[in-house]
Structures are given as C-alpha cells and as structure tokens.
C-alpha cells in the first residue's frame, strides 16, 4: 500500500513523509486514548454514567 501512495504522491514535495505522518497520527491517537481511558477514576466513572438517571421524574406543570 505504501508503494501505491508513493507512486501517486511523487509530484508533491516530501511526499514520502505524508503516509508516515498519517500512520503516526493514527497510532498515537489510539494509544493515547486507550491509556487515558484506562487511567480514569472508577468512582468518577460511576458518577458520570448515572447523570441521565438522577433527574427528578415527577412531572408538574405551571400552566
């Protein structure tokens, strides 16, 4: 696949770095995401997931 990209980007300066950058961004994105999510505080996560449930359900009207 790399050959494919290179072949088509020949007319662009420094073309070879282009797919490398994409690959780097891609891996970095997921590694950072997974590490950060793994490190999240458990108690906090439970609190967050309960946000939709802790609203008062009793319906009253002012009209």
């Amino acid at each position: 696949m790399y050959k494919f990209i290179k072949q088509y980007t020949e007319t662009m300066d420094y073309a070879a770095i282009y797919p490398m950058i994409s690959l780097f961004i891609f891996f970095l994105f997921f590694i950072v995401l997974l590490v950060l999510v793994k490190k999240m505080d458990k108690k906090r996560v439970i609190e967050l997931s309960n946000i939709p449930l802790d609203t008062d359900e009793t319906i009253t009207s002012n009209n």
Partner: protein
Amino acid sequence: MQVEKFYYDNRSVKNFAFATVIWGVIGMLAGLYAALQLVFPSLNFIQYGSFGRLRPLHTNAVIFAFVGNGIFMGVYYSLQRLCKARMFSDTLSKIHFWGWQLIIVAAAITLPLGITAGKEYAELEWPIDIAITLMWVVFGWNMFGTILKRREKHLYVAIWFYIATFVTVAVLHITNSMALPVTLFKSYSLYAGVQDALVQWWYGHNAVAFFLTTPYLGLMYYFMPKAANRPVYSYKLSIIHFWSLIFLYIWAGPHHLLYTALPNWAQSLGVVFSVMLIFPSWGGMINGLLTLRGAWDKVRDDVILKFMVVAVTAYGMATFEGPLLSLKSISAISHYTDWIVAHVHVGALGWNGMLTFGILYWLIPRIFNTTLYSKKLANNHFWLGTLGIVFYAVPMYWAGFQQSSMWKQFTEAGQLKYTFLETVTYMKPFYAMRSLGGTLYLLGTLFMVYNLYKTAKAGKLVANEAAEAAPLEKAYVSHKGEHWHRWIERKPVQLMVVSLIVILIGGAIEMIPTFMIKSNVPTISSVKPYTPLELQGRDLYVREGCYTCHSQMIRPFRSETERYGEYSKAGEFVYDHPFQWGSKRTGPDLAREGTGNLKKTNGWHFRHFREPSSMSEGSIMPPYAFMLKDNLDTSTTIAKINAMRTLGVPYEKGFEKVANADLMAQANEIADNLKTDSIRVSPNKEVIALIAYIQRMGKDISTQPTNR
C-alpha cells in the same frame, strides 16, 4: 447552596415529535410509491412524480425530515435534562423548528419540479442549502447556549455525540454544497469528475455517519438507560466509542467508489478504515445491548425496550455488513445492485426507525403526563415493523446476489449470458415482495400515529415542566492530578474544537492529495467540453434524476467491458459539474451509450424516451413523453457557458455569444436526422438536447467507428 427552580421546554419537543411522525409517514409513503413504480411502471404517469424525481424526495424526506426532526426531538428533550437547564432561547427554538419545516416544504416542492443539484442526498439547490446552513447555526447556537448555562458540571456522553454531530454536519454540508449559482434554481458543483465524486461520497458516507448515526448514538446513550432504568454498561467504553468512531468514520468515504476511476491509494485508504470501523461500531452496539444486563426479563414485557433492542441489533448488523461491503472483492459483487438498497434499509428502517419509535413511545406519554393509550397496539406495531424489515431486506438481498451474478455470467462461447433487460425483468417479483415489506412497515407506523394521537388526546401537554437544581459554582477550581477527560467533559467549546480537529484529520488526508496532485487526474487530450446543446441535455439528465437508476462508471471487469465497452478513466470526467457516476444500476450503465455496440439511432432514442417499453419490451423505465412537447429553455445557455468557464472549462472567449446559434445548428441536425426515421419534431424540444447528450457519452475516447 440555593436550589434554583426552572422549567423544561416541552413544547419544542412536542413540535419536533409531531413533525417526526408526520414527515416519517410522508417519507415512507414516497418510498413505497417509488418501490411500486419499479413493479408497475405505469405509476410514472406524471413527470413530477416520476421515479427519478420521487426517489430523491423519498431519501431527503426520510433522512432530513423524519430522522432530522427525530434528532431534534431527542436532543431538545435530553439536552435540557442532562444540562439541568431550559433550552437557551425559546425564540431560537421556534425559529429552528419552523425554519427546518420550511426547508422540508421547500424540498418537497423543488424536488418534484426537477430542481436538483444532482448529487445524492445533497440534491437541494443552493438557496435551500444556504437556508439549511442558517438553520444549522440556529440549532448549534441554541444547543451551545443551553450547554453554557447548564447546572450540571459534566457533559454526559450523549452531549458529545450531539456536539460532534453539529460540527461535522456543518463541515460536510458546506464543503459538499459548494456550487456556482447559474440561476435562482440552478447551480454547478464547484468540483468536477473524480474530485466531485470524492467530495460527494466523503459527504454521503459521513451523512450516514453524522446524521443517521452519531446523533442517534447520543439518543441511545440517553434513552436506553432511561427506558431500562439503569446506567449505561460501560462509560469508559462509551468514551472510546465516541473518539474512535468520529476519528475513523471520516476516512471511509472512498469505499463507495471502489473499482472506479478514483486513484487506487484513496480506494485502499477507504477500505482499511472501513474495516476498522467495525470496532467502534460494535463497541457501541455492545455497550447499548449490555445496558440491559440483568434486565432482559423486562424486554419481554416492555415494548419500548423491544423497539430499542431491535434498533441496536439492526445497527450491529448494518455496521458488520458495512465493512464487509467495503472489501474490494465484495464490492465487486454488491456495488450497483439491490444488495446496497437492502443494507441501507436495515440501517434506516431498523436502526433509525425502530429507535425513533421507541423514543416516541417513551417520550409522548411523559410530556403529556399520561400513559400510553394502548400497549397492545404498540406491540402490534413492533411486530409489523420487525416483519416489515425482514420482508423488505430478504428479497432485496436475494435480488442483489441474483442481479450481480446475472450481470457477470458468460456462456461457454464466451459471450454475456443475459441482456441487461433480462436481468431487469427478473427483478420484478423481488421488487413486489419488497413493496410488501414496506407496506407492513408503513402500516405499523400508522398504528403508532393512532396510538400516539389517542395518548396525546388523553393527556395534556406539560409545556413547561418544573425542575430544580443547584447552579454551578462560578469558578471551578481544578485540583491537582485531576483526570484529563474531566477537563474536556466540562468544556463544551474545547470538546467541539477537539472533535473538529479529529474529523478534519481524516478528511484532509483523503482530499488534499486528490486536489493537489495533477497525476491523480491524468489529462486526456481528446476529452473536450460539451457543446451547448449537450450541456443543456446533460442538465435535463440531472433534472430527471437519471443517476438514480443509471451509472456512468464502467468498472475494469470483463463482464462490464464486454457489456459497456472500455472501462472509465478519471480524465474523462474533468468537465463534469456535477459528476453523474451514479450508485445503482436499475438500468444499464450509460458511460459509453453513444459509442460502439451500444450506439443507437436518434430515432431509437426518440421512441424510447416517448415509451421505453415500445423499444425494450418489459422495460420499467418511466416514459418521458413530456420532453417531446416541452421547449428547451435556451435563455440560460449564456449563463451556463459563462459559469462553466468560471469553473475552468475551456470554452473560448466570446463563445457564449454564439453558443445558442451553435446549439440550434446541432439541434437542427438531429431533427433532420430524425426525419429520415419518419419522425417530425421541432428542433427546439427538450428531447433533442437529451438525445444530443446521450449520443455524446463515451465519444471522447472512443476509438471505434461511431456508427454501427
């Protein structure tokens, strides 16, 4: 801390809910009618309702009217509760609601009139595009206003999906709608050929992603826990789901263009990311289904949960199938067939439809402070809907496989086994069965209309629902070692900016090379701009929505080059604003219709347009007899030539002044030629221009003699 009292705005929610139901029924009716037209072509009795104009009306109504209003209904309800705040401005809510309905009405008027930009799911012309942009800004303004004055510090995951939806749809809509207006109702896409195709399918795919998926995932993350009365299975998974979904989705567009003239590297990129998409998609589906852990017994009795379970399951099926379809070897079979129609309807009827119904059944009784009128009726709706999906999808899958294998079969002597027409007539029973599926689904929806009507009548709208919450501390002091994501969970604007960056990465990497690098679109010196008559004819082709059934893109397979001629090259489309490659072959490909073995006489085309079945027995193409009577509007020729020149089409300077004379000369030629076929027709009729365009197709790079 002092608790504040405030009121939730339920009136806007109700308005959007009713609009969802009404437009849903209309959109489904249009779809059912279009489906029946494929079985009974005589239903195309008026030009305003012919298949090519009705199909865009159906898709636009279902996507932007039914699902669009469904999104706003769900967002307006959930956002207020998640932010513990009333919507930012009642005036903006009203403008948003009525503005959006006006846009839909404008679409419902212009599309049947043939006013279209000719790009799938982006057919609406430029004044309506501008209106959509404005209304989207109003929606965003109202949403961010609400988020900024919220009383809940943290932004729940549903809100991130809403924010990503807002920002990405804005980017997609603006980029893809870029066009040069020619008249009030006509514009030409700024991009041509391959580039137009890439932008269009980057848009088309991500319209599925960010209009039909991300907002509905947001709704799933709110309404499913509500309906099941338990929190989402894994909040951490939802974070991963969100970021990876929005990051990956945006790269996948080129899988709609496999084996086309799009550069190979872009196709490969699209495939790789489409395959990876299965992970976030299934992560989300599993998260939704496992929210019901320990509550599966409820699913047996609770009709709302039933709808939601089928919706999420359909989401899982469609997102499993999507990556498969984007593999090149499978796309070779599925592309242009009814398989794709089945695939999108599993998504639309299953995921969007069933989730919308579930939310409506949950929400309407609550805002009307009553209970659902009839659970039994809702149960019947559930079964009709589910069976409707099965009866729709199974015949279409079958039809797709059958179609594809018939297109590709050769006899022992090495000739194509079936004519295209044979493959069309073979499809009719499948199309009939599909209509049955659609009818069941629509019937179920009508049950819901009655049920919700009775529910609303029995209750009274709680237009302003009282609530209480403590205000946010003015200055939030972040403490040391606080988690990174909390920073972003508190800051909607940062969240929007980061989402924007994440989606722009994929879009940029896909598009910059295609636009910047010349070698991506090799020039073919024999490809010349259209003559004025051909250009007018092409615009008629766009007006009639011919692209809804005919492709103009021959893939490099023996079965296609045998049937249609030389495969299509990127350089052939450099003057095509917009591109008309199409995505479905209900009729044959037309890219080489004017050349080689495919070439027919002008007289053949004339008679075929008047009554297709008179020339091709069993054809299901609508008749275009009105084009034999209607005069071609040549008042626009000068403006069109000028516009094309502005877009880079090399018409000589001053050509616009002689364009109409050139047009008439070519029209006279065709009319004279028709006389030899004993057809007397005035050269200024629309059909002449359309014939000129059809006869032009494929001629540029044709090496064969043009007359058979």
